[in-house]
């Protein structure tokens, strides 16, 4: 039998000035199931809470209604109060008669009437309150970081420094990502390698970090605190346990292919380190270009290796590990401009390169040893045109968004041309210049002072004429057509999500936005969390960023991971959806609308037409469900219901309101 107690708060004069509290108490006494009603000057105060506890004991109350301020204010307080009195904390309802009555109304009679209504609604709901229990799930105190670029490295280091175990998975043979490809970083012009390689080394030597390069995540199961992840370690054909990284094999390997790291500007052997300072600093054999592995003839590296670490029989291996949290740091790629910009030759002209190729060129350890040259003839260009927003901010061509870092690195590129090639001309074709960072605008101004010529307008066509490239465009500031004759054109292309992120995100259940960037839980308030509990985002996988923002976000993601993994177990919210398997027909509509992937179909043993059968029914994962209730409406028979806000309760509330 429901025995409801109603407690009406004066809140000093906050409520009592506009609501006749005694009248509310008297009315409450007549509500169905109500056996006790009283008022209190300040219900949330110590004596107020004691009065509730006393009444629960004396009147054997088993449901409590408090008419006071917003539940957003004191729900937690009063749940604790009734729990102290021995009641389940979820047998409480709050009627908000302050924010929604006394503070917004002036007519005392009408306000009192409304307060009585709200109390009646709360009592009707309370009558259908059921005991709810939080459950706990243990947490695996190990984090997985997917992606070994600057974001992944920063996150892994921060988590490891906090004393937690981290596994970092990188698909390339070395960590470092895009940042180690760069020459200098804006706006301070410090050498990119100089600031990133020490991090790489620290990471590889960190006692709490397990580094898995040349590896990919192939399956993710489980949920927050308890992910089960399968990682494929690709065959390296080099036993890294023995290899000393001497590099002799690389010098002798006869197979030479285009270097991915150098963006196609240089060559590399089949057995290779990704770059000189690679971590781990040991080579792998690219099985697609190795002569031994493709034709069976060669085997030079094996013959010359001083320690005998070459193993042509090496196979891909899969390991499964448990993790409590996952950081996605899958990074970006550059948009393939050749498919989009036929008017720039679509890749047919050697002397049109991308910004990243420019970075490799200008990098002292790059394919040209730091010299800016024309790929066609190796000559030093006397004039260079940089075109910004290639594929960015142009829905017709590429992407609608701004790639954020290009304005600044273009300024850097122009600066480098002017610095490295005396007397050279640097032109920049731009739509806008966006420099909202510390020291950014100053850097841009400096580039202008250096003599870079900024032309506002898009380039509509580029074609070669003799040794030169002719670029046609418009100067929208002077409203005139411009023709630029330069030796080299650099396209500052849009960032796009790393294509491998799509598969990884789908495995984990992280959403992607319209452009494929991974979706954060809230653009403002939860920028590094995802809608899948225990999965966080770092760096450009979430959207275009420069290095400072990437590092900041990586540290933020690390902080979230640390906060999660420092708990021993996770308390689940008991106000989540629950399936009645008898009613559930297993249609799976709820699965479609669940933003958290918290519902799955499971086998349910049942009898059907006299036969014992297994049928599918929905089941809610308490670790993933956040209690929104979207599923409840998708379920026509109401087989899935939201505890704490059940269909029955809301119908009772509606009925009570209409009295």
């Amino acid at each position, binding site marked *: 039998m429901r025995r409801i107690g109603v407690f009406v708060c004066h809140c000093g004069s906050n409520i009592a000035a506009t609501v006749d509290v005694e009248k509310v108490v008297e009315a409450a006494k007549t509500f169905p199931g109500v056996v006790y009603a009283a008022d209190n000057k300040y219900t949330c105060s110590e004596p107020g809470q004691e009065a509730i506890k006393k009444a629960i004991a004396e009147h054997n109350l088993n449901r409590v209604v408090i008419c006071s301020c917003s539940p957003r204010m004191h729900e937690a307080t009063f749940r604790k109060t009734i729990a102290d009195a021995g009641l389940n904390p979820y047998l409480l309802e709050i009627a908000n008669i302050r924010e929604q009555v006394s503070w917004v109304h002036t007519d005392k009679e009408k306000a009192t009437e409304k307060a009585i209504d709200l109390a009646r609604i709360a009592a009707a709901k309370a009558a259908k309150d059921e005991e709810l229990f939080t459950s706990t799930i243990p947490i695996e105190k190990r984090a997985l970081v997917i992606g070994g670029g600057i974001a992944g490295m920063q996150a892994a280091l921060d988590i490891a420094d906090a004393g937690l175990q981290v596994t970092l998975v990188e698909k390339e043979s070395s960590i470092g990502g895009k940042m180690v490809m760069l020459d200098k970083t804006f706006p301070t012009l410090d050498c990119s390698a100089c600031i990133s390689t020490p991090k790489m080394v620290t990471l590889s030597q960190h006692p709490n970090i397990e580094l898995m390069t040349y590896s990919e995540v192939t399956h993710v199961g489980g949920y927050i605190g308890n992910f089960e992840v399968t990682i494929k370690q690709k065959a390296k054909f080099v036993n890294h346990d023995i290899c000393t990284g001497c590099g002799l094999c690389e010098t002798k390997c006869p197979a030479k292919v285009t270097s991915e790291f150098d963006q196609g500007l240089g060559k590399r052997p089949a057995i290779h380190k990704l770059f000189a300072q690679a971590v781990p600093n040991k080579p792998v054999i690219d099985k697609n270009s190795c002569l031994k592995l493709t034709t069976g003839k060669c085997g030079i590296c094996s013959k010359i290796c001083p320690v005998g670490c070459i193993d042509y029989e090496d196979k891909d291996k899969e390991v499964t590990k448990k993790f409590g949290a996952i950081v996605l740091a899958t990074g970006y790629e550059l948009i393939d401009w050749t498919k989009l910009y036929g008017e720039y030759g679509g890749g047919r002209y050697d002397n049109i390169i991308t910004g990243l190729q420019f970075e490799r060129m200008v990098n002292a350890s790059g394919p040209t040893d730091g010299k800016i040259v024309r790929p066609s003839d190796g000559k030093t260009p006397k004039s260079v045109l940089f075109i910004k927003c290639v594929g960015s901010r142009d829905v017709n061509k590429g992407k609608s968004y701004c790639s954020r870092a290009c304005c600044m690195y273009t300024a850097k590129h122009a600066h480098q041309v002017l610095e490295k090639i005396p007397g050279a001309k640097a032109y920049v074709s731009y739509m806008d210049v966006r420099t909202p960072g510390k020291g950014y605008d100053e850097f841009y101004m400096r580039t202008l002072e250096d003599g870079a010529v900024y032309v506002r307008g898009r380039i509509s066509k580029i074609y070669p004429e003799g040794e030169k490239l002719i670029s046609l465009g418009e100067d929208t500031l002077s409203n005139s057509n411009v023709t630029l004759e330069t030796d080299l054109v650099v396209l500052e292309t849009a960032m796009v999500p790393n294509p491998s992120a799509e598969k990884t995100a789908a495995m984990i259940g992280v959403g992607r936005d*319209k452009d494929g960037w991974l979706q954060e839980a809230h653009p403002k308030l939860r920028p590094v969390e995802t809608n899948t509990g225990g999965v966080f985002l770092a760096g450009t996988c979430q959207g275009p960023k420069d290095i400072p923002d990437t590092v900041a976000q990586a540290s933020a993601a690390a902080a979230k991971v640390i906060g999660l993994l420092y708990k021993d177990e996770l308390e689940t919210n008991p106000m989540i959806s629950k399936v009645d398997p*008898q*009613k*559930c*027909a*297993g*249609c*799976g*509509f709820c699965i*479609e*609308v669940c933003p958290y992937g918290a519902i799955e*179909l499971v086998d349910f043993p049942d009898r*059907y*037409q006299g*036969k014992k*059968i297994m*049928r*599918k029914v929905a089941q809610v994962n308490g670790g993933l469900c956040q209690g929104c209730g979207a599923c409840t409406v*998708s379920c*026509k*028979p*109401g*087989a899935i219901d939201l505890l704490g806000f059940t*269909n*029955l309760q809301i*119908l009772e509330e509606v009925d009570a309101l209409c009295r």
Partner: protein
Amino acid sequence: MSQMQEELRQKAKELLEKGEVRYIIGWGKGRFHHRPPIFIYQAEDVDKLVWDEYCVANLGKYLLDDKFPEGKIGICVRGCDSRAVVRLVQDKQVKREDVCLIGLPCTGKVDQEGRELVKCRDCMHRNPPVYDIVLGEPVEEKGNPDRFKRVEELEKLSSDEKYEYWSNVFDKCIRCYACRNVCPACNCRECFVDQYRVGWQGKQKNCMQNQIFGLTRAYHIADRCIECGECERVCPVGLPLMELNRKLIKDLNSLFGPYEAGVNPDVKPPLGEYRLEDPEEYM
């Protein structure tokens, strides 16, 4: 028609003899003009199968009586039956591999006076969109029957006129739930009307309660109604139930893009998904 019937019996015989299906759901002879559903297990019984202009009942729903069959079920499907099966498969109530769809292109059915049934008048798929075997030649589709005409007429009425119209309709309802029970979109294990503990719906038979039932049922099947018109056909008091269903279908199409339930097994019902660019009226 009789040639098709012969072909159907031959095919049924073959399927049963070869053991490709355990039984076949089709239409048989009833009293007067009725062609009630029948269930043929033996090859020698195939001559009980009838295919003529009186085969009106939608057979799809019978699959729910044998959700875990001990062999394949053969089922005769016109366009509407085929769509019913597709919906049941999409709702995971029937496994596609458990059924063998015997497609029968259909030129419309008639009542005992020989008049074309209302449900056939607005048919969009006379040929089964999904089938395993198809008999006879494809028939010409109706093109674009003006199936929203009545809805558009009703939309033009004033609020009060609309309400009066529907009150008169629902006043007649006797709550026999035949509409629900024949509907292939209604495949809940326990209908909301039967959940007396939750109390979605009162058991009283009065205009308001009938209206709540009618509106709720229509909304429940909004994105699953295959427009077979069975609800309207079986209604003993002749309620124009498709005028409700078609309104929802019309709006779903105009709000969220073209959609026809049960035609393409890969297209999801529109209320189970959303687009960021959906119409915005609530700012």
